[in-house]
């Protein structure tokens, strides 16, 4: 019995050493990839709305008067759904366009929120708060749909946000 426990314990130590080694050598690259991915989505989102992309080095180039970017997280069916929201202030009121940066929803069921896989979220571009609060739930993915609605509501309500490129 003691022999077995020692064996598993030593094996556990061994494999955690391997894992931490891999983590050590990949974490910088992974963090860089995530930031790059996020800024690509943001650039595409701004281009889709004919907004001039401000230079990251010059935060004063664009004033926050008519649009802001908000990064919102909300728990989905499995893990958090991270998203970028572009809120534009127009004469008729604020309108929101969302893009999901990161999620781990069930493939084929909950991943319709991903704009790379489905155009659903693009169809909701430039909708007002009222329209976002009335979006349909997708059957089989109620939690996912509700999470998106929650993200939209937070995007409209929360204070702050920025109009410079992230990362």
């Amino acid at each position, binding site marked *: 019995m003691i*022999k*077995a426990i020692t*064996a*598993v314990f030593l*094996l*556990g130590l061994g*494999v955690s050493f*391997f*894992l931490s080694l*891999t*983590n050590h050598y*990949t974490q910088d*690259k*992974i963090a860089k*990839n*995530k930031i*790059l*991915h996020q800024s690509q989505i943001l650039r595409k989102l701004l281009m889709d709305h004919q907004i001039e992309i401000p230079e990251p080095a010059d935060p004063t180039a664009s004033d926050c008067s008519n649009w802001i970017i908000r990064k919102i997280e909300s728990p989905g069916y499995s893990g958090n759904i991270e998203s970028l929201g572009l809120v534009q202030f127009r004469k008729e009121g604020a309108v929101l366009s969302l893009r999901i940066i990161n999620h*781990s929803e069930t*493939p*084929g069921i909950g991943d319709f929120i991903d704009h*790379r896989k489905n155009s659903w979220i693009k169809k909701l571009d430039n909708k007002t708060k009222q329209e976002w609060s009335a979006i349909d739930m997708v059957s089989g993915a109620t939690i996912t749909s509700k999470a998106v609605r929650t993200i939209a509501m937070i995007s409209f309500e929360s204070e702050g946000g920025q109009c410079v490129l992230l990362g």
Partner: protein
Amino acid sequence: MYYWDNLAQNVVKNNPVWVQLLGLCPLLAVSNTLANALALAGASAFVLISSNTLISILKSHIPNFIRLPCFVLIISTFTTIAVLLLEAFAFELYLQIALFIQIIVTNCAILERAESFASKNSILASFFDALGTSIGFAIAIITLGLVREILGRGTLLENLNLLLGQPNISYTIVFFESPPISLANFPPGAFIVAGLLLALAKTCFSKKI
């Protein structure tokens, strides 16, 4: 010669998918495009070969009655390493198939090889056994990916650029403007195509086996 015979046997006569019907879960889930199939074949081969070799090295130190938890520990370690490497070097592809790379842990072909071969044989023999099984698995998933992508999407090699880390170059070959049988792109289609290929493999090899 023994090693090569064993390797060849694992590729054709003991093919993990078409003969032993193992590891179907990740196989059916990821084979909707050829690029995804290649990525899963590569990741599975990495996990299978390294875990089999390590299990063979440690076989005399692992107590018999606790061997399965130890094997699973080793396999899941290599799977996590594969996921981290994929996340670091092919991020776009990672975003698409990360969930399926993670379920390599549950691929019974890997545990089966560890249990029935690597825990009883020498390091070199286990290495070649794992290599043979990986090639057999790769052939199966690539065939399935090839057929499903042409039928279900009408294209070939879509997303290969993501696998190679060149997001701006497209290698896609378009066969049909609209997919001929889009069912093949979805899970039920995966079962049907896999069943048909299995029948084909049985017909082709039944006389030789």
